[in-house]
């Protein structure tokens, strides 16, 4: 279970093979992977490795990828 970072991807992005592939390519710590049907899968084990580079946010339409720092929540 991730302790520090949560990543949410809008289902409309997660379904698209081209955007899923892009996310896999840009993430430096392998948070994203593709399922057999090319849809997006989030690798839970790697979430805490997130370096907050925002490349995933830039790779997708605005507002479709959300990074939450769990340690900033009350």
């Amino acid at each position, binding site marked *: 279970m991730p*302790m*520090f970072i949560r990543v949410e991807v809008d289902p409309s992005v997660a379904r698209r093979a081209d955007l899923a592939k892009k996310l896999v390519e840009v993430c430096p*710590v392998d948070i994203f992977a593709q399922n057999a049907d090319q849809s997006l899968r989030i690798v839970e084990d790697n979430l*805490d*490795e997130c*370096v*907050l580079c925002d490349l995933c946010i830039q790779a997708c339409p605005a507002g479709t990828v959300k990074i939450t*720092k769990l*340690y*900033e929540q009350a």
Partner: protein
Amino acid sequence: MRFYEHEAKTLLGRQGLPLPKSGNAKTPEEAEQIAGQIAGTVVLKSQVLSGGRMKAGGIRFAGSPQEARREAGAILALAINGQRPRSVLVEAKAPVRKEFYAGVIYDALAKRPVLIFSDMGGIDIEQVAEQHPEHVARAHFSVLEPFSDYQAKNVVASLGITGNQLSRLTPILTRLVRLFLQYNLTLAEINPLCELEDGNFLCLDCHLDMEEEARDRHTRLLQELGVGREETRQARPPTPFEIRGAQVDALDNKGVAGHVIEFDGDLGLIIGAGGGSLTLLDAVRKHGGRPANYCEIGGNPSVRKACELTKLILSKPGVEKIAVMMNVVSNTRVDIMARGVIKGVIEAGYQPKDKITFFRIPGSWEDEGARILRKYGVEYGDRSVSMDEAARRAVVNMRGR
């Protein structure tokens, strides 16, 4: 990384340094055969990485091949400081007239290598330097410029050596320096370097250490010598704790989180960064702390690595708490380190505020790291807290809480 004597002598031989007739035997039968080829009295030397071979009975003499076989059998069965010999070096016994010392090491203060020579060999050079400093000559040299016979000659001549001795010693020292530079050694020592009855010189014993980080530059050489990648080649075999530390470091290629050496203290240390580890270790001891380990962490390790290293250190019997401290030059991301360590503490079954006595990591993303540490109630310090002060607070918190 330390070489066995027979391997070191192979390197000396390649550089043209004079060596006694010899062979490396893995069995008593081989020792007998080599002794027969040498003909005459031989010296049999246990091939272990530990010192103290003579005192432990790991160096013996034999007047015949049959005796060599018996003595080799005894040596191969003898563990020295917990190390089983890998083989026995069989060498012709040399008629020695006088013993000298020649060595090259790095002088950390001068930031240059230094050639050391003495006309009192066969004993520890440290002892000679302390009791007979007038018998030790030194000369620093550049790693960028070629080393010349002239420099070597000056060192030898400074002890008043002239004539035949000077002429014969000069190329030996020059070649030793070249060997040191060619193979990225951290120590190249010939002791004793012997003058024989006939005026010739021989390297009777030698000690070579290669810089650990240079192993990849010399893979071909190490293959030729039969040195496996898995061999740590330290003076003592690694403990299970240290082996696990190396495994943690090998988890991925991000940063460093390992090089763990264990001590018997109660304060686990997660420390690192360009000399910071040793400084902080000393600072903890100065303030009365008892380090449970030395380690090196930095270069932006993954959260997973920092987490596993933390768990490893906390699993060591006797460790009550840990301190996380690094040097300002590390530039390692504070938030990533904080995540890894806190995750490790929690996965080990503890609360971070109870187990972490002090957390000092100056570096990038300090503010983000501070947010994480505050969230978990961990006492921390940034670059405004000196390493000495961080060590003091770690020790005080260890005793006081």
